[in-house]
């Protein structure tokens, strides 16, 4: 059956299923089809992409989906979002959010950070991934260029985690600290360390990072905390 013959409800289900299976090209086609039918970008996002990724998230949490599968789903989500994002801006829809993320100076370990970036993209966030070994200036430049709501810093080494405090101090010095929500993470990082360096949030894993980022964006939009 071709896409055109599907009812709207079946089109949403098909999108969700293809997201679930990480079928990037199909999700792109379905996103275009939904828009062609006159659905608003906001509607395509919530009925198709977000609804689909909610299922992916639940099944990942329950151990049904594996990391590589979630990665494929997140890539499909990202592809759909690339079509929707400019349209969402045009229609003045509230932004899901933009994040600048990087491993701090001295540290080139980034598998965990990449998992966070992937999960954030899976939740519809636009992610600017600075990669590894970033000094404070790179974070500052990226904030000025990309205007994110959130920055994320990670470290694996106990010797590099104190640099997070350096970045946060630099943000203060540049007058940028209040514009961004600072999230920290990484294997040796803890809640109390996050507080000590002046971060806004510590996330113990990628799924929690996404939940915290979504909750922050809801607060920022004045929607109150999503449960």
């Amino acid at each position, binding site marked *: 059956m071709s896409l055109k013959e599907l009812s709207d409800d079946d089109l*949403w*289900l098909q999108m*969700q*299923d293809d997201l*679930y*299976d990480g079928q990037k090209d199909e999700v792109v086609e379905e996103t275009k089809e939904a828009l062609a039918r006159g659905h608003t970008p906001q509607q395509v996002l919530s009925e198709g992409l977000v*609804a689909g990724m909610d*299922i992916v998230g639940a*099944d990942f949490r329950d*151990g*049904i*989906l*594996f*990391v*590589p*599968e979630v*990665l*494929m789903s997140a*890539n499909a989500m990202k592809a759909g979002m690339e079509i929707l994002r400019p349209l969402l801006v045009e229609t003045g829809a509230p932004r899901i959010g933009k994040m600048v993320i990087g491993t701090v100076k001295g540290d*080139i370990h*980034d*598998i965990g950070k*990449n*998992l966070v970036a992937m999960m954030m993209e899976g939740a519809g966030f636009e992610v600017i991934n600075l990669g*590894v070994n970033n000094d404070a200036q790179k974070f500052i430049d990226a904030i000025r260029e990309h205007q994110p709501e959130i920055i994320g810093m990670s470290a694996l080494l106990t010797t590099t985690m104190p640099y997070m405090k350096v970045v946060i101090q630099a943000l203060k010095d540049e007058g940028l600290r209040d514009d961004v929500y600072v999230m920290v993470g990484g294997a040796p990082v803890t*809640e109390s360390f996050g507080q000590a360096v002046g971060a806004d949030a510590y996330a*113990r*894993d990628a799924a929690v990072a996404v939940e915290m980022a979504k909750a922050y964006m809801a607060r920022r939009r004045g929607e109150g905390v999503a449960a």
Partner: protein
Amino acid sequence: MTELSERRRERRARQVAPRQLAAQISYTQPRHELLDTNGIRRLHDAAMRVLREFGVDFYDEECRAIFADHGALVKGETVFLDEELVMRAVARAPRQFTQLARNPAHHVVIGADKVTFAPVYGPPFVQDLDGVRRDATLADFQNFVKLAYLSPWMHHSGGTVVEPMDEPVATRHLDMVLSHILYSDKAFMGSVTSGPNAADSVTMAEIVFGAAAIREHPALISLINVSSPRRYDDRMLAALKVYARARQGLLITPFILTGAMGPASIAGSLAQLIAEALAGIALVQLIEPGCPVIFGSFLSTMDLQSGALTMGTPEAQLGLYCAAQMARHYGLPFRSGGAFSSAKLPDAQAGYESALSMLPTLQAGTHFVLHAAGWLDNGLAAGYAKFMLDCELLGMLHTWVKGVDLSDEALAFDAMAEVPPGGHYLGTGHTMRHFRDAFYRAELFDYTSSEQWELNGAQDSYARASAKARQLLASYEPPPLDPAIAANLHAFVAERKAAIAREPRDF
């Protein structure tokens, strides 16, 4: 909330579906061998000297007569054997055999390059799901049969998985054999507590498999313990004769606590163990040439300071490697090992001792691993949680024993070509082909972050294992059994119980 779509439902089903029984392990790795040619000869010569000079007692007149008919010297209850007689008889034993299971997919090959895992055998107590040590009951027996049936890593249903202390001694064997048949479709062991009990076990196997079928391939393997040093008792010998004449498998196992039941050295205890095992195996082959047998070894140490039995000690593992190598030298399937421990609950001691026993068991090339799960308290107690945790270890060992795949697919050049320096492999085509079964995934060990673990209730493996046992027992469904066979079994058990009630008994 949207409906569960078809594709998602399929994945959920795959995730929750009970795992099929894993295929028997095939050894591919080289065996760990401690003995060189000279070492093998020294142990063999010492064992032959034990048989020739000291002899072995057989508390059964007919067995002694069988030995005497074949030229052995018999003085009183002691049988003295020369090398030629013993080795000629032992040479008749098959190098490997297949034991029948009620489900043909669960037949087990004993010997060759195969490993069979079987549950703990003999504990009169259980460490129950509330952590209480108490007398084992028939209900416990059935529970352990069910848990063994449900484990994908347990190839065999075992024998006296616990001693059902709430059933009369005279009829317990009927309930045990019946429970194995009703609650599992894996292979099981027969009763060895007397000749008539062994005969009942054989009859029940005949009802299930047919009398002709079990003469071709045994449906029972039964555990004949040597009452070391150098002594076979009357009950064991009565059972041995029944099973040998029915061509059922016999597991001949000296039980030696070195220092007390054998010399206070590994070499001396091994010489005695080899002598004892070969004497019993020779007897079986004199009664029924070609009857399936297994060379067994239960060798542990005694704490000579306190007199306590000790499990999972390094000396016992050294003995295990040598005993396995000697069985291989004689061309016999070998039994040893188990998830041994002296611990009273599944604590750190239990984990260390069991792991330290199980790895050498497989490195040694053991074919039949009795006590592979559930053993606690020197074998006095069967632990529910311990059983679950041991099964997790067995699962890991299934992978561990396989060694390394060196195929082109496993070398994964296509994946490396996709990933730049510092990149990641989580999304490569190769990963997508293999992620689901690339690595063993333990169910009962915790891999979450410490924060997540605390949020989940900060459970240790003991608590997780107990919860899993409860869940499995609640969801258990028996395997199908032909109603006609079931009716015949129940009728036989009822008839035997009535007959036994009329017999004079001194206990």
